[in-house]
């Protein structure tokens, strides 16, 4: 894959093993190569998702039919949601940067079960193929929304089975990644790497892995039941046979709410690495951030019902879920405060990753605070299932996870490829992207407050102006994306060779050469008593 590389000893990119060429990648059990496999496959799926997003926005440019039929639109947001959630942001940071960096950051040579790691990627690919098969063959792409709500998901005439099954396989892949990380963190920390010396990114991966492990099987079995319902009519969620559609929603959100923390926790971890590095300063409140990570992971299990305030739950349950939703917001607040305090009296080196990190904090604030509007009972009744929710989760999923992903990509890029990107283009890309983002999603808050329901193919004239702005925003943003990606791809091949530690960071991955050698460390590192991941002197 990598051609010209001047490093004299073999690094993981140039190393030649039993297999040659492409096979040397797709059969490699090296965690770094697997990480890159994930990166490329996730980016491929991501572009499909983006194209669908753009198509939807184009359709909404004007009321009535613009470019597609209602059926196409309904399939578009379903497939867009499934791809973005199950194939992009859930595996995103853990499977890409977690895989590449986690073992190095804790001073290990690989993850605990390298073969299982490769299997996870293969399962990911299998899941992707199954979902794509649902699009191309049979009776049309699924049109149920990514939530597969019963009973419509039994009624829809579209090709749902492979999609549901694909989502199940993707869930399994995610479970195996989580399991692998947990064992790795428990067993393979290098000597002296106590729990309280682990980098925060590793801590967030640890919390994330628990969620993946314990929440995913619930949605797994739920999806299996939907499939069985469609095949045999077992009646479990079918109101005609006595089933309760609301119970389906409970089970779905028991997983899918914790899943949103699977998306955001590693993102927060990446930000917790970047801010101290570019401030050249000890992270503020290391233990508080760890505690908040674990608190989010745990309390996140208890609040799923806030997606169901209008679903017909009992008043008691609504009261309770709303209350806990507010509790889960507090650890996130703690993190934000600690990040900002870390910058206080730092020596801030303003580089591309810091732009991304700072804009992450900004969009995460908007996304998170709008989550509070949704968590309150009275206001959620009003804006539930409107464009407001769509704005909330794009701000936080894609503003949060997406921005953190780009922050991490620009931060670790020199380590991963051993080359530096063009900083000017990287900053330009960020700026265009950021402006586009604001223009794309801010109007949706307004539209939601005006009462425009989501998943609407067509809308009344009164919502026109907001939608025009939003569609323009999508075009600006995609321009930014193209700049960023082109810059990174070019730099990965032709950029200046990068130093070992260009940002003067203190975590272990910066103590190995760029790109890292095959075995990561010749000799396992030993962490001294007064050493630590953020010990800037």
């Amino acid at each position, binding site marked *: 894959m990598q051609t010209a590389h001047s490093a004299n000893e073999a690094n993981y990119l140039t190393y030649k093993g039993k297999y040659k060429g492409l096979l040397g990648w797709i059969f490699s059990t090296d965690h770094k190569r697997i990480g890159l496999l994930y990166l490329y496959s996730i980016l491929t799926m991501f572009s499909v998702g983006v194209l669908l997003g753009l198509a939807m926005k184009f359709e909404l440019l004007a009321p009535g039919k613009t470019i597609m039929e*209602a059926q196409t639109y*309904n399939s578009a947001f379903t497939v867009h949601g499934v791809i973005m959630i199950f194939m992009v942001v859930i595996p995103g940071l853990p499977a890409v940067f977690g895989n590449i960096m986690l073992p190095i950051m804790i001073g290990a040579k690989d993850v605990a079960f390298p073969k299982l790691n490769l299997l996870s990627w293969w399962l990911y690919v299998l899941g992707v193929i199954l979902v794509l098969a649902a699009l191309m063959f049979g009776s049309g792409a699924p049109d149920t*929304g990514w939530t597969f*709500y019963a*009973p*419509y998901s*039994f*009624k*829809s*005439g579209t090709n749902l089975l492979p999609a549901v099954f694909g989502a199940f396989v993707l869930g399994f892949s995610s479970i195996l990644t989580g399991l692998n990380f947990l064992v790795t963190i428990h067993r393979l920390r290098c000597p002296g790497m106590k729990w309280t010396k682990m980098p925060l990114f590793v801590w967030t991966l640890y919390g994330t892995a628990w969620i993946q492990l314990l929440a995913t099987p619930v949605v797994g079995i739920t999806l299996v039941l939907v499939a069985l319902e469609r095949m045999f009519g077992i009646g479990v969620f079918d*109101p005609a046979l006595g*089933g309760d*559609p609301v119970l389906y929603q409970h089970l779905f959100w028991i997983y899918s709410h914790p899943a949103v923390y699977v998306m955001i926790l590693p993102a927060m971890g990446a930000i917790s690495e970047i801010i101290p590095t570019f*401030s*050249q*300063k*000890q992270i*503020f409140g*290391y233990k*508080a951030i760890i505690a908040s990570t674990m608190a989010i992971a745990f309390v996140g299990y208890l609040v799923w019902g806030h997606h169901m305030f*209008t679903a*017909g739950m009992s*008043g008691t349950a609504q*009261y309770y879920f*709303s209350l806990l939703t507010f509790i889960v917001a*507090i650890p996130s*607040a*703690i993190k934000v405060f600690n990040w*900002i305090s870390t*910058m*206080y*009296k*730092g*020596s*801030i080196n*303003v580089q591309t990753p*810091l732009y991304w990190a700072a804009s992450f*904090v900004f969009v995460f*604030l*908007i996304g998170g605070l*709008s989550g*509070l*509007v949704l*968590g*309150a*009972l*009275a*206001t*959620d*009744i*009003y804006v*539930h*299932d409107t464009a407001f929710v769509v704005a909330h989760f794009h701000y936080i999923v894609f503003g949060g996870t997406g921005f953190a992903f780009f922050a991490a990509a620009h931060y670790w890029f020199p380590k991963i490829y051993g080359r530096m990107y063009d900083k000017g283009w990287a900053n330009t890309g960020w700026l265009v992207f950021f402006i586009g983002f604001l223009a794309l999603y801010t109007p949706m808050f307004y539209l939601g*407050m*005006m*009462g425009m*329901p989501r998943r*609407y*193919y067509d*809308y009344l004239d009164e919502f026109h102006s907001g939608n025009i702005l939003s569609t323009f925003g999508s075009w600006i943003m995609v321009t930014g994306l193209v700049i960023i990606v082109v810059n990174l791809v070019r730099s990965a091949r032709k950029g200046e060779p990068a130093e070992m530690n260009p940002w003067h960071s203190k975590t272990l991955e910066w103590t190995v050469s760029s790109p890292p050698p095959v075995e990561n460390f010749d000799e396992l590192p030993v962490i001294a008593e007064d050493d630590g991941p953020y010990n800037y002197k």
Partner: protein
Amino acid sequence: MYSPEVTQASNFVQGVDTAFLVILGISFFFLIVLTVVMIYFIYKYNRKRNPVATQIHGNTTLEIIWTVVPFLLTMVMFYYGWAGWKPMQKAPKDSMEITVYGRMWNFSFEYENGKRTDTLFLPKDQPIKLNLVAMDVLHSLYIPAFRVKQDMVPGMENNFMWFEPQREGIFELYCAEYCGLQHSYMYTYVKVMEENEFTDWLVDTTQVAALDIESPTATGKRIMQNIGCFACHSLDGSKLVGPSFKGIWGEEHTVVTGKETRQVLVDEEYIKSSIYDPNEDVVEGFSKGLMLSYRGQLSDDDITNIVEYLKTLK
């Protein structure tokens, strides 16, 4: 919707809007302060101005403060959210009850005296309780101006919502839960009238009388409009979710019964069975399970009228 003309359209507007203001107020405060502080730090402690960082490990007092203060604030927000929502839970005893049927993809409203409409007509200043009945899949009844929304769940008992309209006018009513192909067309209007105007409308016998003298054809068409057949069946030959009604009478249709395919003649009996047991004979090229039985909603007389109307569609 937040335009000044429609404020106070129902008794819940006040509570919901207060919650909005409180939460948005706190949110904007934090958003602005934190963003400004962050940008200021990046500027002030820039490497050029501050070449050496001062190492600070943390501060327990601060940690406690910024745990407790947001906690208290969230409880305030929770309180307002709760206060605006609480009254929605229980309908007053003297509410006027209206049954709402939601099906793919239209609403119909049935009043206590049996009158059925496809638009919701309401008297001002009178508590209204809507009993929600979903015929096929989930729908959600959403009237933004009244700040109310409730999912309509098939098979659920005691599925209701209530409110008291407090302003005359015409408001939008949407289906807010995704329900398939024409979800975005599943909307209608609410018309709020003065009490006596409404009573006149409700007992308006001229319409009922007109029904009797009018031809069954016209009656059939009205019934079909009110109950929403045209969401799925067109009159002009175009294929929607179901087959078009154009020229349907007396045609030979290919249907699938169980596993076998056979030809049927569209006659009175076939139409009746198509309405009562739509999934017995499924027209070739269409999916089973979309059209659901109207047994209990349409009487035999209604169907006779529908048939008369269908006969005229050449």
